[in-house]
């Protein structure tokens, strides 16, 4: 069955903003799919609300809609574009759920759009927990005891039949949201209620947990002719009970005999056949009882998933690309394997290395929440490591995480050194982000791998390998102590075990650079091997490499002009997909300039680690050692460090010191912008205003600075990303608390204090410079007032509160700063305007988080231009000049993971906590901002009941908002103070009780679905508990919660426009044409 000829236009739905459980792996799969479909000559219509993605670049589809992912917008786009088919299996759960809605609401039928990749029936069978269970039983599969319920009463009834602990999993959700493990009746009702509210179809599955069983996943593909292949098997190091997205996982499966593995494969085949995955990829999870080998089916996803991104990177088999082709009619044997070129895609990859994935969490941004892991995913990113053995891969992954870990080692780490055995045991019992390091600590306290097994249920195979690593540390240290040197053979063995130079340095009490020298002198250098899907059985043509310390090196450097781009490593809050976007653009620019582009990165979710993006891909940790090893082999003409966020910048000075040619702005410029003292002197010399500032290395110094500058102050540790531990303090007491509790200031790590400009308006400016000419890329105005991290605030382009004179001043300051810092490439500057004075808040001489947004809005690829500049072109040659006018308005809004952290403070702060962003674009501000709100996961309805509660200083400004909402037909509810005020203005208001005033109170109202919008500004510490309760209720019941008046005003404008004019849904290609 070759390609279908009856299809011309294909609608692809992306996964929307990056959230926990649905991250940039869907940009990777979506980008692959769009490329593959266009290669086949189809017209691709893409809808995705996330501007930071590569897939929404106008060159990856024919019609690129950055529009909200809801039925309404989709219907209009379908009506306009008339696609023949909809492919919903590459945009995660979001896309799948939307396809179901579009189908069930009759829209697909109305416009004669066929679902390809998965039928409605397939999606429902796989996603509806009850249907799935029954289907599994029907084909003779074992599933855990339990059942599905739609009400609390049913949930109570089911308890008759099953025993605790239980796993509760809502239907049609992603990343295990609303899921939990419960151990008793007390927790049960709450957990069920939450699960029901998290499920879009109000259904949860309640099953006896198989806690402690071994957990496996199979990534499979099936075509329309019933051909079936397993792409990859994955074994979780963390047993059942921890969400697979939060688990350390290993590919391939390590502890199954062939008989057991084939039984699993047979089961998978039966399952996908029954569920009806006809064309594409799927993933199936199994649990295996370690004592008897009994196997049960946990769940399946009839789509490309996070695990399939991992499986693609782990094997070199491009699941998304093949899935897209299968959906258009091809059979597996009709698609060639890119890597071997000679063999078809209808085979099962076999790998000759081990892959380890470790998630990365950002619990420290959500204080007060337990960091114990459970069935609900909480990680924000992941790193992957490839090695010839598990030990090597594990160590490589550990140092890829950028947690300050050098490998499997916790000595000298104050978090563990003092941990006593009891606390350790209690902590290890549950998964935590650092469980591996705790295991190391347990070994160092004399516990054996058997002891640890009894506590953790982690398979002894993994534990014993960890123990080998622990024991080998002793061997190394012993040899060093005895002889003062290391035999090359021992050194090589250490490297084969994945020990980093830094780790060895810790063991031998030597600087990393000494170890490096000793190692190279001894001839112990890495070899690079190819990821080829076939364990070298066939010659491969794909330059996808990983390092190891085996005999033969397969990476032969070319004599071409070449440049290495350093990626951003694992995603985390503050450093996400935006930086990968820039890296990918950098690669594309290098290639179009005829320069060999070499990528180094360790994040399996990204487009940059797709093997056919760069000319050469090294899947390696982004550490000094690993990067320099590649540089030593490749001897590049340049290394680009300004695209990967903070990760490569941290290496800048060390790389430069080692003689590495850095392309673009120099490490010195970067340091000049980061070093407060040097930067302050620069601003003074340029006569550019900045808020008054100081640095403090102790509490006393801080108090003194506070006295001189005056409060409020913006305080933060030096050299941070995403505003980590950044706060506003209003008085000396607050400052004292901050200095003693939030940070540890020292000689090397001073705290920076800036006068905080209350009520100022902030602007983000991205500019590009060739060292001579400086041009603005875009000016974004933050909608909220100062004090909210730029990554979290809503922003609009073009700015709406910027006079022409101010605009010209911003331009001039930007030019002066770019020149002074000798920027070659991109520079990002944050400004604040207060009482007509423009202040510089921060300068980053590198690609910023806003580059993708600005590029999308302007329709100009700024990251690509930056590379052209680095390669020697001038802006004049590139032909770019800044145009102030923009015939449309674009709004960027952030998306937060508060639904995963019960105790999260949902008021926005200087510390960044958003995981992703969406964009709304339209002819005016109202439409764009409304679309942006719609595009976040919690959409604002057109009318209903709004609950208003604001602090005293906001009261006057709130009145017109309330009046405006009232005029649009909203009912208003408020607590007594605000209610009185509004009633006095003649507005009808329903008074509701505060949490401590009795029942039913505001939380009850939210829970009962009687509130549809909340506008609530912070009331200060006194009512903190109240605010947490309201915030959490709003999150659980998906009620939009607006925390600033500026945002409320924006919503009002949006709602007004929404009623007044029909919404335009235009694709980027149409916007750019004007």
């Amino acid at each position, binding site marked *: 069955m070759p390609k279908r000829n009856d299809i011309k236009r294909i609608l692809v739905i992306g996964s929307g903003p990056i959230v926990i459980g649905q991250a940039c792996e869907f940009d990777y799969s979506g980008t692959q799919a769009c490329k593959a479909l266009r290669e086949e000559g189809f017209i691709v219509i893409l809808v995705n609300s996330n501007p930071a993605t590569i897939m929404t670049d106008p060159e990856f589809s024919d019609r690129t809609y950055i529009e909200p992912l809801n039925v309404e917008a989709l219907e209009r786009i379908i009506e306009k574009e008339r696609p023949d088919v909809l492919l919903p299996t590459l945009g995660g759960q979001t896309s799948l759920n939307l396809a179901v809605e579009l189908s069930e609401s009759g829209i697909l039928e109305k416009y004669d759009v066929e679902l390809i990749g998965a039928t409605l029936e397939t999606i429902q069978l796989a996603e509806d927990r009850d249907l799935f269970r029954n289907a599994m039983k029907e084909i003779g599969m074992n599933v855990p005891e339990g059942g599905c319920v739609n009400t609390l009463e049913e949930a109570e009834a089911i308890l008759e039949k099953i025993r605790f602990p239980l796993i509760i999993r809502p239907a049609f959700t992603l990343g295990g949201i609303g899921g939990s493990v419960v151990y008793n009746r007390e927790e049960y009702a709450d957990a069920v209620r939450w699960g029901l509210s998290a499920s879009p179809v109000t259904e949860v599955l309640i099953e006896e947990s198989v806690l402690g069983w071994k957990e496996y996943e199979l990534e499979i593909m099936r075509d329309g*002719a*019933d*051909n*079936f*292949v397993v792409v990859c098997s994955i074994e979780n190091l963390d047993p059942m009970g921890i969400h697979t997205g939060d688990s350390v996982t290993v590919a*391939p*499966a*390590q*502890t*199954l*005999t*062939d*008989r*057991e*593995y*084939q039984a699993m*494969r*047979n089961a998978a085949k039966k399952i996908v056949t029954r569920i009806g995955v006809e064309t594409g990829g799927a993933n199936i999870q199994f649990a295996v009882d*370690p*004592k*008897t*080998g009994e196997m049960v089916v946990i769940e399946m996803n009839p789509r490309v998933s996070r695990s399939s991104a991992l499986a693609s990177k782990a094997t070199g088999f491009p699941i998304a690309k093949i899935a897209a082709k299968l959906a258009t009619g091809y*059979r*597996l*044997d009709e698609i060639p394997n890119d890597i071997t070129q*000679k*063999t*078809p895609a*209808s*085979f*099962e*990859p*076999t*790998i*000759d*290395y*081990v892959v380890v994935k470790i998630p990365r969490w950002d619990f420290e941004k959500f204080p007060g929440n337990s960091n114990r892991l459970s069935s609900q995913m909480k990680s924000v990113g992941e790193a992957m490591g490839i090695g*010839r*053995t*598990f030990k090597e891969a594990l160590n490589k992954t550990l140092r890829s995480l950028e947690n300050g870990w050098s490998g499997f080692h916790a000595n000298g780490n104050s978090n563990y050194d003092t941990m006593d055995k009891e606390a350790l045991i209690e902590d290890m019992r549950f998964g935590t982000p650092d469980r591996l390091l705790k295991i190391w600590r347990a070994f160092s306290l004399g516990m054996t791998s058997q002891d640890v097994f009894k506590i953790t249920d982690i*398979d*002894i*195979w993994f534990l*014993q*390998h960890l123990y080998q690593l622990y024991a080998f540390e002793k061997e190394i240290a012993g040899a060093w102590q005895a002889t003062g040197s290391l035999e090359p053979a021992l050194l090589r063995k250490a490297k084969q075990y994945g020990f980093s130079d830094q780790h060895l340095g810790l063991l031998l009490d030597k600087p990393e650079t000494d170890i490096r020298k000793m190692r190279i002198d001894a001839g112990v250098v890495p070899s690079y*091997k190819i990821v080829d899907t*076939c*364990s*070298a*059985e*066939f*010659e491969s043509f794909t330059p996808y490499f990983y390092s190891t310390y*085996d*005999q*033969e090196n*397969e990476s032969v450097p070319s004599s071409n002009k070449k440049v290495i781009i350093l990626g951003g490593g694992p995603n985390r809050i503050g450093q996400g997909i935006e930086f990968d976007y820039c890296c990918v653009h950098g690669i594309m620019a290098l290639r179009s300039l005829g320069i060999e582009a070499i990528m180094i990165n360790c994040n399996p979710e990204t487009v940059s680690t797709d093997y056919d993006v760069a000319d050469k891909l090294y899947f390696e940790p982004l550490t000094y050692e690993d990067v320099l090893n590649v540089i030593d082999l490749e001897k590049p003409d340049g290394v680009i460090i300004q695209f990967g966020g903070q990760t490569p910048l941290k290496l800048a000075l060390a790389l430069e010191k080692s003689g590495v040619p850095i392309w673009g702005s120099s490490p010195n410029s970067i340091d000049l912008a980061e070093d407060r003292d040097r930067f302050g002197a620069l601003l003074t010399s340029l006569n550019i205003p900045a808020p008054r500032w100081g640095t403090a290395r102790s509490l006393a110094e801080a108090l003194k600075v506070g006295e001189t500058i005056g409060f409020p102050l913006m305080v933060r540790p030096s050299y941070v990303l995403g505003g980590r531990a950044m706060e506003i303090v209003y008085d000396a007491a607050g400052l004292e608390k901050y200095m003693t509790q939030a940070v540890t200031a020292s000689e090397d790590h001073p705290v920076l204090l800036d006068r905080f400009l209350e009520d100022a308006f902030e602007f983000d400016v991205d500019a590009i410079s060739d060292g001579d000419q400086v041009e603005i890329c875009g000016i974004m105005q933050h909608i909220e007032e100062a004090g909210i991290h730029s990554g979290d605030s809503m922003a609009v382009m073009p700015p709406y509160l910027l006079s022409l004179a101010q605009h010209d001043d911003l331009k001039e300051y930007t030019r002066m700063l770019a020149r002074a810092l000798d920027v070659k490439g991109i520079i990002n500057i944050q400004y604040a305007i207060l009482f007509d004075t423009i202040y510089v808040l921060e300068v980053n001489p590198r690609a910023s988080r806003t580059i993708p947004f600005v590029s999308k809005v302007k329709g100009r690829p700024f990251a690509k231009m930056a590379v052209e500049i680095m390669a020697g072109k001038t802006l004049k040659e590139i032909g770019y000049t800044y145009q102030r006018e923009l015939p449309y308005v674009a709004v960027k809004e952030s998306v937060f993971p508060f639904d995963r952290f019960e105790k999260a403070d949902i008021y926005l702060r200087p510390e960044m906590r958003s995981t992703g962003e969406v964009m709304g674009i339209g002819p005016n501000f109202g439409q764009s901002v409304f679309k942006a709100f719609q595009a976040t996961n919690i959409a604002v309805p057109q009318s209903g009941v709004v609950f208003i509660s604001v602090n005293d200083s906001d009261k006057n400004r709130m009145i017109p908002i309330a009046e405006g909402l009232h005029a649009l037909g909203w009912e208003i509810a408020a607590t007594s103070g605000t209610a009185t005020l509004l009633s006095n203005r003649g507005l009808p208001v329903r008074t509701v009780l505060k949490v401590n005033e009795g029942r039913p109170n505001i939380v009850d109202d939210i829970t009962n679905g009687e509130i549809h919008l909340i506008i609530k500004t912070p009331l200060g510490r006194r009512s903190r508990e109240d605010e947490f309760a309201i915030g959490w209720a709003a999150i659980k019941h998906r009620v939009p919660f607006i925390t600033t008046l500026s945002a409320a005003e924006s919503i009002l404008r949006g709602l007004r426009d929404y009623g007044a004019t029909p919404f335009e849904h235009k694709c980027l290609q149409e916007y750019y044409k004007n």
Partner: protein
Amino acid sequence: MNARLLLSDGTVFDGLSLGSPGTSVGEVVFNTAMTGYQEILTDPSYHYQLVAMTYPQIGNYGVNPLDVESRSIFANGFIIREYSPVVSNWQADLSLDEYLKQYNIVGISEVDTRALTRHLRDHGAQMGMITTDTAPVNELLETLRSSRTLVGSNIVQEVTTEAPYDWPLDTPAANLDALPYRVAVYDFGVKYNILRLLQEAGCRLRVFPAHTPHEDILAWNPDGIFLSNGPGDPEPVKKAVASVRALLGKKPIFGICLGIQILGLALGGRTTKLKFGHHGANHPVKHLPTGRIEITSQNHGFVVDIDSLPKDDIKITHINLNDGTLEGFKHKSLRAFAVQYHPEAAPGPHDSRYLFQQFIEDMK
């Protein structure tokens, strides 16, 4: 203890001794299956071969009494990247190292098996030696080069059963006679899983030595004849070829692996040696009548030349999608068919088990 792997072209790999110390010679082949080392070691088709596993972590799940494919280990030696002294599986009763020692098998670990694989891929399969002997390389190479080669040797006679036996082993004949189809198995090195699956399909099995004359087979009065897998070069197994030629048309015949080669030779075809053979569990085979793809388990160094078969009598049924080599054919008029790959898997995917049913249909 240190060990070395020498190839007859003079390439030397250093490693550590695994299993028994000593010296062992055989043809070096690589297998790309990621699981199933116990089945591979006990597969008689690996007789006189040194098997290198491309998957680097071996020994993880130990060995167990169930996953055996014959009465013994038949591989002459075992080559791996990293040995796991930790055994983790509920069924395991021994570690791999203990198992190798029990059967006096010489092995080597810590070899860059990927480098070895690439070498064999580019230069072809060749004879090799694993040794813990510390003698100079030249001396060892001399011994190696004077060893007999696989091509031209009839090594089937070294693995076939000495006397006929019934399957399952140690089962009273009375219990077996209820099975509806009497199948005579020519044992060229048969894997137990073939016998298990045939029996499951309803066959009452008697396993005969490879050199059994066709008259003796017919005297047992079988409903069908099965030609098993086995090691080495099919050409020298002349007696069996003659017997099969005599049996053609008399009873339904089904052959697997060496069985297809013997059948091919009996039909007047030719066999050739592949550069480095097919050894793995991921080979795509297309079933031509339906177009379906089967992911198959493979283990062969020789193959029946497609063009050598009598076109008028033979229908090609299966083709290898990687290199287009013959994977299966059937006789157009006589009830005889065979496949080059291993539908019994062990190790490998179970996609092709329908073939056993097809044999039953032929016997009906």
